[in-house]
């Protein structure tokens, strides 16, 4: 066998051995759950911060360290909620019910 033929043969074998692997169906669900968890965590952090604000509003406003938390929570929550909606859009065709509610609920939580 000539050198180019051998290369072709090995490349064909490699193509056969390293076929693309289909991801399991449950993977999109996992990603959705993770994004939901992040959204809820960020939402809870915002809520907790709001409680503190009502109790010691003036003190908190004077302390710039407290401003970091809500801003971070808002950023993380918004990003996760966006991604959640996006992943949800992809899954909509497979699972028409439930997902949109989850995304809408997550967004509602964030807005509270």
């Amino acid at each position, binding site marked *: *066998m000539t*050198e180019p033929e*051998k*290369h072709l043969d*090995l*490349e064909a*074998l*490699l*193509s*056969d*051995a*390293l*076929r*693309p*692997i*289909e*991801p*399991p169906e*449950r*993977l*999109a669900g*996992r*990603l959705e759950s*993770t*994004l939901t968890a992040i959204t809820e965590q960020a939402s809870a952090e915002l809520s907790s911060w709001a409680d503190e604000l009502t109790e010691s509003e003036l003190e908190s406003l004077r302390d710039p360290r407290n401003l970091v938390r809500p801003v971070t929570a808002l950023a993380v929550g918004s*990003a996760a909620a*966006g*991604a959640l*909606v*996006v*992943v949800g*859009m*992809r899954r909509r065709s497979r699972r028409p019910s439930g997902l949109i509610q989850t995304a809408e609920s997550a967004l509602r939580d964030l807005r509270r």
Partner: protein
Amino acid sequence: MTEATGAAKAELDRAFEDLYRDHLRDVYSYSYYRVGNHHDAEDITEQTFLQAYRHLERARRESNGRPLRPWLIRIAHNLAANHHRDRSRRPQANIEAVEPPVHPHDTEQIVAGREELRSVMRRLDDLSDERREALIMRFALDMSNREIARALGKSDGATKVLIHRAIKQLEELIEAEDGTPREAGDD
């Protein structure tokens, strides 16, 4: 949120949706061949897309319209490297342990071909990480030299040489395993 930022956010979400839809299989395949099992491949794929979402805006800005697949695979590559580092003290599956996927061939082909494929998988594990990764990108993901170069942070020329040497080394390893003498003048 202003109308302008709302539109920008919607555009970013559409871009993420496209990225996710177009490359989920690529990221999963790459992760699977790097870690050798579905469980860890799912973890890495999930983390890859979470990181991608966080940094997508910047990546799009800096890509100047070039495809984002190499960037995505580079994220998976870094996560897989972290995974191996974290688990270096524990036993782990390597690519040799990956069973060649079953595909629709006829029975005779399967019987004749499976051992050949196993041999390729075994010998892939003898390559350096970089050579093995380049071959995974080329053959499992069908990436071009340019895309592989971007994913590995190398020049196009260096990547071409890397792939050529990887194939040549693999060929020599398989021949040595088979006990087939190399033909005179092969080099």
